[in-house]
């Protein structure tokens, strides 16, 4: 059974979600409030994604070890779907087909299998499987297919997709296997804390940008991301992180620092994925999937923040 801190964290999040859902539904039913209906829909979609994430993570907290496996499996499916979206919107040629086959059927499941085993001895393999072995395999397999047209570009696209959607995201469930002194069996709470901060930061940057945003950072890439929103988001996410220190192995200052780093990385992830989307001329990764926001749109910030959060925690707080 989880301790009191964990229960209050989850309870608090559920309460916030409940309020947000109520607001979202009310806004949807009264179209004359003067808020853009598309914005309301986007808000509701985000809330729904949050409920799903929250349920999965809370499950991991309550069920203990079997749920750890379940969490890894869920993240595997998220990675798999995100990679589908990424490669679907990235032009590849017939010569890339076999390499892509192995990327989807071998490297992606293998990465999550290693994470799922959660054995300390495999942590080296877990961190080199894709950046080293898949990195070398992909160009070799593409070369064997005999099509050299825009070779480096095609190879780089597949490598980037695999790194962002699979490798980076797999650091999130890997948090569950960290061995932190005086924090036994609570890593699920830490994962919960991490995802909460990343997602809150997304919302806060958006909210601050709407309220005070003046200086757009890169108008050609994202007209809604401003310096005011960025700074406001990072600052407020850090405050929330510090306020939630009791759920983590960190002191209040450390928790604030972690939340700040995670927020900056989340911002970097959103910015990078926006640039890729602009280049491909699409609004979001879900365009092909009618009626859903893309999975990749929801997790871009998590992908970028997870490796940094994992490594900082591991080197400064965990036994290795």
């Amino acid at each position: 059974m989880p301790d009191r801190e964990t229960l209050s964290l989850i309870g608090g999040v559920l309460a916030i979600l409940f309020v947000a859902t109520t607001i979202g539904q009310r806004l949807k039913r009264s179209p004359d409030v003067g808020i853009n209906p598309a914005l309301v829909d986007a808000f509701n979609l985000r809330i729904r994604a949050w409920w799903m994430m929250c349920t999965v993570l809370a499950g991991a907290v309550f069920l203990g070890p079997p749920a750890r496996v379940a969490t890894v499996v869920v993240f595997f499916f998220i990675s798999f779907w995100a990679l589908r979206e990424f490669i679907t919107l990235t032009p590849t040629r017939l010569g890339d087909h076999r390499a892509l086959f192995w990327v989807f059927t071998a490297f992606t499941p293998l990465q999550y299998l290693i994470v799922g085993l959660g054995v300390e001895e495999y942590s080296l393999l877990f961190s080199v499987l894709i950046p080293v072995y898949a990195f070398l395999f992909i160009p070799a397999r593409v070369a064997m297919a005999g099509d050299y047209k825009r070779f480096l570009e095609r190879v780089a696209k597949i490598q980037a997709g695999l790194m962002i959607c699979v490798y980076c995201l797999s650091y999130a469930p890997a948090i569950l296997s960290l061995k932190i002194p005086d924090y036994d069996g609570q890593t699920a709470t830490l994962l919960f804390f991490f995802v909460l901060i990343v997602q809150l930061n997304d919302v806060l940057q958006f909210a601050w940008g709407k309220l005070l945003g003046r200086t757009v950072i890169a108008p050609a890439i994202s007209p809604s991301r401003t310096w005011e929103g960025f700074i406001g988001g990072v600052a407020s996410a850090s405050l929330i992180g510090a306020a939630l220190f009791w759920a983590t192995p960190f002191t209040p200052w450390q928790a604030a620092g972690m939340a700040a780093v995670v927020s900056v990385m989340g911002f970097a992830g959103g910015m990078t994925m926006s640039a890729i989307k602009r280049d491909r001329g699409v609004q979001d990764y879900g365009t092909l999937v009618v009626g859903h926001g893309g999975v990749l749109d929801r997790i871009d910030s998590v992908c970028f923040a997870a490796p940094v959060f994992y490594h900082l925690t591991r080197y400064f707080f965990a036994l290795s």
Partner: protein
Amino acid sequence: MGAAGHYAVPRRQDNMPSHDELRPGGDAARVSPMTARFGQNTDAAGTSLQTHMTSTLLAVIARILSGASVRWIDSQPDTCQRVYFANHTSHLDAIVLWSSLPQRVRALTRPVAAKDYWEKGGVRRYMARTFNALLIDRTDIKVHQSPVDLMLREIGTEQSLIVFPEGSRNTESEIQDFKSGLYYLAKKRPDLELVPVHIDNLNRVLPRGEFLPVPLLSLVTFGPPIWLENGEAKTDFLERARKSVRRLKDL
């Protein structure tokens, strides 16, 4: 109609109902399609139930593998007699299109496929039977046994067809010129609704010449039906049909 469950495979002539039975207005027209497919014989019904389950299972797998989203633009699923015509880029086209239809429409819809390809080997033959495919001999077309006549006889007044008027799988990025079969179908049965379908990205899931699929996401778009206009020339109609498919790509 004893072993009518097998009539999808023209090779087994002995088990097929005579063509007269399937002609519009003939006996078969009054038999419900499920009975026509599954027959009354318990043995045949058993095999057919299995076929039905296999086809549903394969359809689900195809949908998951191809990540296909389905859009109906100015068009609705319906059990009325239709000819779905689509661009052709992958072996998965027929099964993904078929599985994009709702269950009750699917039960009445038969993909038209090449006999020379789908009768080679046990697996292909089994697949063709599972999807109740209407196999057409591309190498042996006779004047009195034209493929269009065969198709119209087979569908009677109940079933719909899935055709790929480009003839064979296309490796170019643009849709190729349509073969004339669609025109003759429309001319001989003006009551059939011709529904254009555009299949996007499936050529990357399973390209021509590959046998291992890559599970990307694809998109199946159904458009509003077209009909042959009064006095419309063959080439004009075929070009209009091709454009009605092409147009769906950009919507």
